[in-house]
Structure formats: structure tokens, C-alpha cells
């Protein structure tokens, strides 16, 4: 547990002593506190500007939507990949089931055939080879099916990573909102100092977003072709 600092002790004392104050005195005290908060905020804004953090904040705010786009792209791609794999597996498993059944029937039929007497030696050898093949097919089919099921189970990554990506997108959205608010408030303080108006600050953010949109990455061949076509190539 940390000990109270001088300032927090002072605030504690102020609050404590305020209990015995009259209403007008309390109002004056509230104004004093608001004035102090204003001074601290102003000092913080000045420090941010002097250190160049305002620009860094603005640049960071502009990066956030791109980060969200990228996360959304990861989510979309993993979803599509899992869908392709699951569709292939759902097609592959019945094929293996069918092959297994056919091989079992072939084994039974060949086994019955081999019980016949006076079979031509060459035919017998051929039937024995068929029997071996049908047994091997059954074993391979079962193993392939087990492997397909393992691949299917591995697709659960899409659910787990998808949930993480969704949480990260929510967090970045929240962060962007809060940082934009800080920037707007910062700009309002600057406007009071005659540096930059709030409207100018919003305009600057929008302008940067437009520039970012122009710098968007093309991700598919059709997008590349469309872009080249639009440029006359």
C-alpha cells in the first residue's frame, strides 16, 4: 500500500475541511478546484505540444483505422480458409466411407470366391492379390479418414483467433475514440492560444485519413488489374 503523497494529502484535507463550510464557500472552493484542473490541463497540453507528442498522437490516430482494416482482413482470410478446408473435409470423409465400404465388400466377395475348389492357379493368385489390395485399401481409408478428422479439428483455430481479433478490434476502436478526443481537446486548448482551431484539427484529421485511403494496399489480383486499368495500362 502506498502512502498518501503531499498533494493527495492536501486534497484530502481540503475535502475534509469542506464539510464544515457554508454553501457559498463550497461554491467558491469548487471554482478553485476547477481552476486548478484547468491549469493542469493547460500545462499538460503545453508539454504535449513542446515535446511534439501532438503530432505523434495524430499520426497514431491515423494508423488505428488501418490496423483495424488489417485485423479485419486477417479475420476474413482465416474464416475463408477454414471454410475451404472444412468443405473439402466434408466432401472427403463420405468418399473415404464409400471406399471403405467397397473394399469391405470386395474382401468378402473375394474371400468367398477363394473357397471354391479347382480354381485355376493364375485366377487364384489374382484373387489373392485382390484380397490383399482390398484389405490394404480399408486400412489406408481408415487412416486417411483419421487424418481428415485431425485436419478438421485443427480448424478450431479460426474460432479462437477470431475471438482474439474481435477483442483487439474493439480495443483499438476504443483507443482511437479516446485518442481522437484527446486530440480534439488539445486542439481546443491550442485554439485558445491562437494556434489551431478545433475545426482545423478535425479537418486535419479528415485530410490525413483521405491521404491514408489513397495509400491503401491492393490485396488481390483483380484489384491490381482494376487499378492498372484505371490508370490506362
Amino acid at each position, binding site marked *: 500500500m502506498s502512502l498518501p503523497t503531499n498533494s493527495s494529502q492536501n486534497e484530502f484535507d481540503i475535502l475534509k475541511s469542506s464539510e464544515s463550510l457554508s454553501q457559498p464557500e463550497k461554491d467558491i472552493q469548487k471554482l478553485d478546484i476547477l481552476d486548478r484542473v484547468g491549469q493542469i490541463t493547460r500545462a499538460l497540453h503545453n508539454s504535449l505540444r513542446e515535446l511534439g507528442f501532438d503530432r505523434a498522437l495524430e499520426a497514431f490516430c491515423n494508423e488505428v483505422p488501418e490496423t483495424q482494416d488489417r485485423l479485419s482482413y486477417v479475420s476474413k482470410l482465416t*474464416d475463408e480458409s*477454414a471454410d475451404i478446408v472444412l468443405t473439402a473435409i*466434408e466432401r472427403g*470423409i463420405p468418399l473415404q466411407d464409400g471406399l471403405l465400404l467397397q473394399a469391405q465388400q470386395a474382401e468378402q466377395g473375394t474371400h468367398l470366391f477363394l473357397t471354391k475348389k479347382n480354381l485355376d492357379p493364375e485366377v487364384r493368385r489374382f484373387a489373392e492379390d485382390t484380397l490383399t489390395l482390398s484389405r490394404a485399401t480399408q486400412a489406408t481409408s481408415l487412416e486417411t479418414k483419421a487424418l481428415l478428422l485431425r485436419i*478438421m*479439428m485443427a480448424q478450431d483455430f*479460426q474460432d479462437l483467433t*477470431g475471438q482474439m481479433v474481435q477483442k483487439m478490434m474493439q480495443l483499438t476502436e476504443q483507443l482511437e475514440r479516446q485518442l481522437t478526443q484527446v486530440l480534439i481537446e488539445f486542439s481546443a486548448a491550442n485554439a485558445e492560444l491562437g494556434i489551431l482551431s478545433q475545426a482545423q484539427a478535425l479537418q486535419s484529421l479528415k485530410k490525413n485519413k483521405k491521404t491514408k485511403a489513397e495509400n491503401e494496399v491492393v490485396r488481390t489480383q483483380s484489384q491490381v488489374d482494376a487499378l492498372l486499368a484505371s490508370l490506362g495500362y
Partner: protein
Amino acid sequence: MNQQSILFPNSKFLVVDDFTSMRRIIRNILKEIGYLYVEEAENGLVAQNRLQTTDFDFIICDWNMPVMDGLSLLNAVRARDETKHIPVLMVTAEAKKENIVAAAQAGANGYVVKPFTSLTLSDKVNTIFEQMSREDK
């Protein structure tokens, strides 16, 4: 996985998960075990509506879902006379102790943490059916 070990092969399952891939994985596992009647719902509310029109014998439910989460669905299932007897297996990435306790207190019959194996899921389903079968006797 073994189709011979299942107790109630004609059981109707409702799989509730917001991720299509997870619903498909669970459906395919159930199919492999031998349960062929499986319906899907993408959140608790859709599941709740489905439960009003169809009699299900088993619910497999995710925890985190938009619109209505798994715990709310579990509470709703237990609150209705028509559905309170249906076994509910929670299949979720929420591995926090408090969530497991909350699910148990709300009346979940089992809890499987993602990622899981097909064997774990089939074992849980079969165990719950066995318990129900013993309780019926």
C-alpha cells in the same frame, strides 16, 4: 470414435456457436459418433426461438456470442418447463474458474474448454447421456 457406443442414436442436437467453422466441426464430430440430426444456431436468441418450435434432446453451446450469450441461453432453457430437462454442454474458450462455476450453478451438464479433441467431446456427450439414462431408471 465409435458409432456402436451411443445410447440414443435418434437424439436431436442443437449446436449454438457464433463461428460457422466451430458449428461445422461439432456437427461433423456428432455425425462421426452416430448422431445425424443436428441443427445450428449462431447465437442464444436464435437458439431460443428454435427451441420453441422443435424438441431437442441435447444442446451444445458456446459462451461468448453476440446478441445473447451462452449463459443467458442456459438460464432461459432452465427457466422454461418445456426445455428445463434438456442437457446442456458448454463448449467454450472461457476457461476461467468463475465461468465454470457460474455455468455449473446455472445448471450446465458439462463444460468443455476449447481447443478440444473429438474424443473429449464424444466422451462428454456419451457421459451426459449415460447419467440421464441412470437417472431415468
